[in-house]
């Protein structure tokens, strides 16, 4: 049985998942070029379609999708090749009827997880946050996270993280109240809690949001939340969780992903 792990070559988490899959007696391949896979999408005049994904002649059974990274260099042939590769994978994964973790959809190559749009889910709000204009902590207990808008990179906390020539995103939060929730396949974990079990109340409060994420194709993502009364402030959602963020429960998380890939329809 062959699984495909679509990820950039420096994605350690993807490589670890491949090793985990191999230990369970399956094959997981992380191709670094189209010459390692065979991909065909055909459609009829009535838009009926068929997708054939193969590695070494064997049909792919499931896909863990973590994107294809950035172009090797900006502009020119590299940018064109990257755009073509993205379009090919996007068409193939979105139209394939096999299981894909973090599936490509009409809405995006990777699931669109902008907290700004996820606040349309009842009970979900944003923390005090802004782009471009620095925010300062309102109380001594609070901190301000600074991210780079163009790629979402975390730069640090407070004014020390401010750099020029960047559009920055400032998010005010109370670290004592921040919680992490990891959605992996059909399961939901608390990556910081003992055993990874998520408290029932938190699970209930997040049910509409988790439902929305799944409807967007997101079934491997890390949520950073701050409970605020009956509402939940959504600080961040990442569709590319890294193993450092769930180290204590890595086998359970990988098993949940594998179960999803082996259990989905073919």
């Amino acid at each position, binding site marked *: 049985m062959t699984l495909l792990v679509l990820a950039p070559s420096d994605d350690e988490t993807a490589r670890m998942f491949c090793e985990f899959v191999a230990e369970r007696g399956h094959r997981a391949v992380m191709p670094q070029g189209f010459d390692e896979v065979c991909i*065909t999408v055909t459609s009829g005049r009535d838009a009926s379609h068929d997708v054939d994904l193969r590695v070494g002649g064997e049909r792919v059974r499931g896909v863990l999708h973590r994107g294809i990274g950035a172009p090797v260099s900006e502009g020119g042939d590299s940018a064109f090749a990257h*755009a073509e590769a*993205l379009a090919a994978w996007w068409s193939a994964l979105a139209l394939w009827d096999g299981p894909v973790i973090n599936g490509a959809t009409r809405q995006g190559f990777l699931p*669109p997880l902008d907290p*700004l749009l996820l606040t349309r889910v009842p009970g979900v709000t944003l923390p005090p946050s802004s782009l471009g204009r620095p925010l300062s902590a309102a109380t001594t207990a609070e901190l301000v996270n600074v991210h780079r808008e163009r790629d979402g990179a975390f730069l640090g906390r407070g004014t020390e993280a401010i750099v020029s020539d960047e559009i920055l995103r400032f998010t005010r939060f109370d670290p004592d109240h921040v919680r992490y929730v990891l959605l992996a396949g059909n399961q939901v974990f608390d990556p910081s809690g003992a055993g990874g079990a998520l408290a029932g109340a938190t699970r209930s409060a997040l049910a509409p949001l988790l439902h929305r994420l799944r409807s967007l194709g997101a079934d491997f993502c890390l949520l950073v939340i701050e409970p605020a009364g009956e509402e939940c402030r959504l600080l961040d959602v990442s569709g590319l969780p890294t193993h450092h963020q769930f180290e204590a429960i890595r086998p359970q998380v990988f098993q949940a992903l594998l179960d999803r890939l082996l259990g989905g329809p073919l």
Partner: protein
Amino acid sequence: MILCIGLAADPTFLHGLRALAAAALPFTVVDLPTLALYGELTVPLDDVRATVIRTGDGETEVVLDEVCAVWCRPLNVSAGAPSPGAAHRADGQYQALCRVLEAVNVPVLNPPWREATNSAKLLHAVALAPVARWRIPRSCLTNDPDTARAFARSCARGTIVKGVGATKTWATLYGSEHERRLPRLRHSPALLQERIVGPDVRVHVVADRAFAESIHSPDVDYRTVHGANRYAALSLPQAVLEGCRRLVDYTRVPFLGVDFKIEETTGDWYFLEANSMPCYEGYDVRADGAISRALLDWLTAPRMPGAARTT
């Protein structure tokens, strides 16, 4: 006031600005390269209508809350920036503006990331054609030379070869040169489609109004031909018009440039794509400004409070 976001170097953007000026409508312009070099963007994410854009010319400050509609043709200009710093600002501003224009409760023509499948041609056609109840040409996206060769041989009237994504590529007719290069497919897939022999049609759809032209060209890709194409206004069959309207509703994109081919022997229409940032100025000139008038009507239409918000 209508907020216009785009590039001063984009002829389509300039065409739209001229139409706004000719209609004496109040508008303000944000040129994205100027914004990156000299301007400033501030977005309170928990209240995006309070977004402030300072264009950098010392005079213009736009608060989104004071805007009645947005007309935008945003492009990420970071690759052409004169310095890494300007590139980073341009990239960040582009990402931020696209997020804001998707989330804000103001009529936007068009929300830039709304119809994302424009970046993947085959997915785009397969996803949208059933909505409008249209046919598409038989297609094959592959990196397998044998599959490509077999598909090409199955197309009795010829095969068109084109790029898979949104980057502009010319459609060419499959021939011996392609056959010779088939082994290269292993490294980068291509999109092959059965050739539909007959005129192209471009329909510009603005909400429920549509403006169509047929294009008779001596070449396979009419965009490569200058001076020899014949353009003629076309009355749309009712089924095509209704399909266009369904597409606007489904995509929640109010302005689309929809491309078809008409098979010359059967008269059947084949959907190719629906462009959500069409270059319409040439068509508009030939239509005596009808597309512009429809766009201005949409931008200035009275709306119920909250009506712009979509979920």
